[in-house]
């Protein structure tokens, strides 16, 4: 009987080979058949056919930063909910209360941000 | 809308010192036009726009026209003393009209739904004197059209908010819609060249070796 955890090794191997194989094929193709031809024109930034003037990394309005932070919080929250959702049926009532507290805490944060006006878009 | 001469009289009454002239239009369309002088152009324009009877608030079309030097032969009856007695003589006299550039404005009224009133502005000459007062402050619709006239004809509109080339690229120096503009000869393969295309094509033909003494193509 092979080691019960052996399927993990196979799973890992397939997971590794599956993406690497096309990359290897592409590298082989580049190496033997199609030589790359980079150039100044080809690598220039594309801006609707016109030479792009000025640089793109400029200082943005701080409002975008606030929006990004609020999104990040709720994104992380969604990750925490995933294991809860998977084991939801087998959990006692206490676990349900715990996740509710977690959710309400973040909700309260959202209400505060809303009240503070971070969400209203500055025209 | 009243007749053009009535309007002319009213304008001259309202704006003293405005030198107006009616340019008759011989064609059946009978749209005669009003020639303004540079100094009073914008005041007359404002009058045309704000006058309650006219209310020409919509400048539909601004066109540039290029009039070259013209020598006009005229038959003139001249009394001449020939061998001691008076005789009526036919003499053709040449008269040279110096060239000028022109901007023609077609004005309509959206309030009274009448028009067109054709207004003309002429430059002093076709070279460095090609300056005209801009009517964009009066009618915003003239903005792009005056830029186009500046681009293609070379009339500098003084007072225009943003006088740049609109159609050609900025490094372009000529004014291509003028009658005396020669476009660059970008070589075209002409299988059967004729008259002026032949001249252009000749510079690109490999001269044919004169075999039996027949003339070379250049001398065709």
């Amino acid at each position, binding site marked *: 009987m092979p080691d019960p955890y052996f399927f993990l090794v196979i799973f890992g191997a397939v997971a590794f080979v599956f993406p690497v194989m096309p990359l290897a094929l592409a590298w082989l193709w580049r190496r033997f058949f199609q030589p790359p031809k980079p150039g100044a024109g080809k690598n220039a930034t594309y801006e609707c056919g016109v030479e792009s003037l000025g640089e793109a990394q400029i200082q943005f309005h701080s409002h975008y930063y606030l929006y990004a932070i609020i999104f990040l919080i709720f994104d992380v929250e969604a990750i925490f909910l995933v294991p809860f959702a998977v084991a939801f049926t087998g959990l006692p009532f206490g676990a349900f209360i715990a996740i509710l507290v977690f959710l309400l805490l973040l909700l309260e944060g959202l209400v505060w941000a809303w009240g503070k006006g971070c969400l209203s878009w500055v025209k | 809308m009243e007749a053009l001469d009535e309007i002319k009289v009213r304008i001259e009454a309202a704006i003293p010192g405005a030198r107006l002239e009616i340019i008759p239009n011989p064609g059946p*369309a009978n749209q005669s036009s009003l020639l303004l002088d540079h100094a009073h152009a914008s005041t007359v324009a404002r009058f045309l726009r704000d006058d309650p009877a006219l209310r020409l608030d919509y400048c539909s079309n601004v066109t540039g026209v290029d009039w070259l030097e013209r020598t006009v032969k005229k038959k003139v009856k001249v009394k001449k003393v020939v061998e001691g007695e008076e005789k009526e003589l036919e003499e053709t006299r040449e008269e040279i009209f110096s060239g000028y550039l022109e901007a023609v404005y077609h004005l309509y009224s*959206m309030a009274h739904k009448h028009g067109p009133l054709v207004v003309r502005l002429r430059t002093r000459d076709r070279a460095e004197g090609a300056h005209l007062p801009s009517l964009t402050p009066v009618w915003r619709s003239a903005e792009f059209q005056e830029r186009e006239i500046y681009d293609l004809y070379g009339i500098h509109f003084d007072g225009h908010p943003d006088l740049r080339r609109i159609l050609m690229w900025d490094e372009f120096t000529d004014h291509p819609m003028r009658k005396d503009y020669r476009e660059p000869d970008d070589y075209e393969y002409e299988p059967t060249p004729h008259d002026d295309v032949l001249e252009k094509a000749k510079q690109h033909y490999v001269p044919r070796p004169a075999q039996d003494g027949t003339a070379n193509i250049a001398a065709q």
Partner: protein
Amino acid sequence: MSLSTRAQHSAVEAPPGMPSRLDGELLEVSMGPQHPSTHGVFRMNVALEGEVVRRLKPVFGYLHRNHEKIGENTSYLGSMPYTDRLDYICSMSNNWGYALSVEKLAGIEVPERAEYLRVILAELTRLVNHASLLGFLLSDMGAWGTPLMYAFRERENILDLFESLSGSRMMCDYMRFGGCRCDLPPGWMERARKVVDGFPHFLDEFEQLITGNEILIARTQEVGKLSAELAISAGITGPGLRASGVNYDLRKVDGYGFYPRFKFRVPLGEHGDCYDRLMMRVLELRETLGILRQAMDDLPAGPIMNPKVKIRAFKPPVGEAYGRIEAPKGELGFYLISDGSGNPYRYRVRPPSLINLTVLEDMCLGHTVADVMVILGSIDIVMGEVDR
């Protein structure tokens, strides 16, 4: 922490001379000649602060094909096929505009049947243009491709009519000075009637989908507002002007081409925003269908060409004339100066699309980048006419 601190938060004034720490710099970007929704090679240099437009300079000339210079070097008849390529979606109304101006220049009469044919074909072109606009505007707004497919299905039906009549789908070159080139082929009128009767089905489908759609309302209402005074002063014509509430339709004002004989209404808007401009086109489509039915019902028999007009060696008398028609995009005018020879001395086209773009910057300031596309789409430009 009470909510009142919000006022202080945004009132943090930077020390004088120092850029206020909160707002960002302007990003210069060019929505350039090759852009999915600029309806051709039209470029806008936009200065963006974050997503909000602070400055917008249109750049033209990428399709400047020297239509007027070529017009001066060819005969009057020779310029007729070039007018198809001015506004290459509505070739029939361009022909009519040019033919009308030359008839005014030379004082030519047009027989009644030819005038009716011109009205029918110009209104069919209006159907094509407004249907295409609905398709393009909705794909600018994000409904990529699907409404365009429906709009082009209707367009194909009408192009079949044009092709059987004039021989070409898009470039009809059908009208001549003093009438039309050829009479209707047999069975054309029945097919035309079938297309016109089938059109309301397409229109109802569209109205059902877009009129009450709250995404569309959110994207177009209060966007790109244009006041009536600015519209008049900037020479905006066509549906864009009527959306701002100015009742100026050349078919009623000039009364050319027997339009006074047909009963039709001119829709007017109040706010002058993108939603009104969109609805102008939808309502005008309904009126156009009404005109088409009336014109088709009492199309008289008779000659389609004024026999006295010479086609080939056509030399109008010396003089000038400015003729204009209500093209689907606005007032299309032709200003011709004739010096008696076979070629016009000056051949000028008054492009509705170019002049409708005069106030593009005024409409776009303060809006986001996505709204610029909706505003440009609602103005409805075609580059062949803008750059000539």
